């Protein structure tokens, strides 16, 4: 895909109460994600603008991966004149397949984007079988 096309916009959606209320107070949004798979791993990229490393929690429990992030944008002394985005945390959960080696999950957070690498378990990686010639 070319980078010259205009950006496609996805609206920031707040999580509705009927979807299950977060335990922590405040508004939570669903972050936009890209998930892609290679032979080695499944990689997840999530947009978390305004999130610092300290405010980010990644939990894996019983094959459920949960990303929770708090956002503290300081609005003290600022009178809002016009607003287009709401300020709140982010949360989203995914169910992991059997193929993921949960002990080797790694995460980095750069410029508001989380990169989560979920390596596949060694025994489940595809293996090329050599055919012996008689």
């Amino acid at each position, binding site marked *: 895909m070319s980078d*010259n096309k*205009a950006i*496609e916009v*996805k609206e920031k959606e707040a999580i509705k109460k009927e979807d299950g209320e977060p335990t922590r107070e405040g508004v939570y949004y669903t972050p936009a*994600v890209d998930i892609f798979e290679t032979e080695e791993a499944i990689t997840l990229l999530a947009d*978390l603008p305004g999130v610092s490393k300290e405010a980010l929690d990644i939990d894996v429990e019983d094959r459920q991966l949960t990303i929770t992030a708090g956002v503290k944008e300081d609005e003290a002394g600022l009178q*809002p004149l016009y607003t*287009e985005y709401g300020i709140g945390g982010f949360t989203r959960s995914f169910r992991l397949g059997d193929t993921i080696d949960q002990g080797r999950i790694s995460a980095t957070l750069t*410029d508001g*984007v989380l990169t989560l690498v979920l390596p596949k378990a060694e025994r489940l990686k595809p293996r090329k079988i050599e055919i012996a010639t008689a």
Partner: protein
Amino acid sequence: MLARWGYRTPGMWNEMARLSREMDRLFGETGTGTRAGVFPPLNLYDNGEALVVRAEIPGLKAEDLEVHATVNSLTVKGTRKATEVQGASYHRRERGHGVFSRTIGLPQEVDPQKVQAAYRNGILEVTLPRAEATKPRKIRIGS
């Protein structure tokens, strides 16, 4: 009495506008007030000395962003690159990528020479100090 009401009306309208903004903001926080179809989404504030614009633009480098200011407008431009990985199959693709450019009109005149911009954790913050001419000035009353 009527005359007094007449004087008060502009103030009341301002008050109404402020209330309406506050309401929008409250509803915005429950998810209905955000504007669809624009990137990056911007919030505009006034801190008394300057206008402050914040934008949610995750995943860029400061050098990939261009910020231009005039006396009464602000333009934010850039390109969000797609992550292309050889041999990968995509399960989900929700993050937008491509070029973007937005210009907004400013409600007060600013001094373009003094504009500052910072990019941190995927949020761009531009501080636009108000032009000297628009700052409130105390007028001496001659006797």
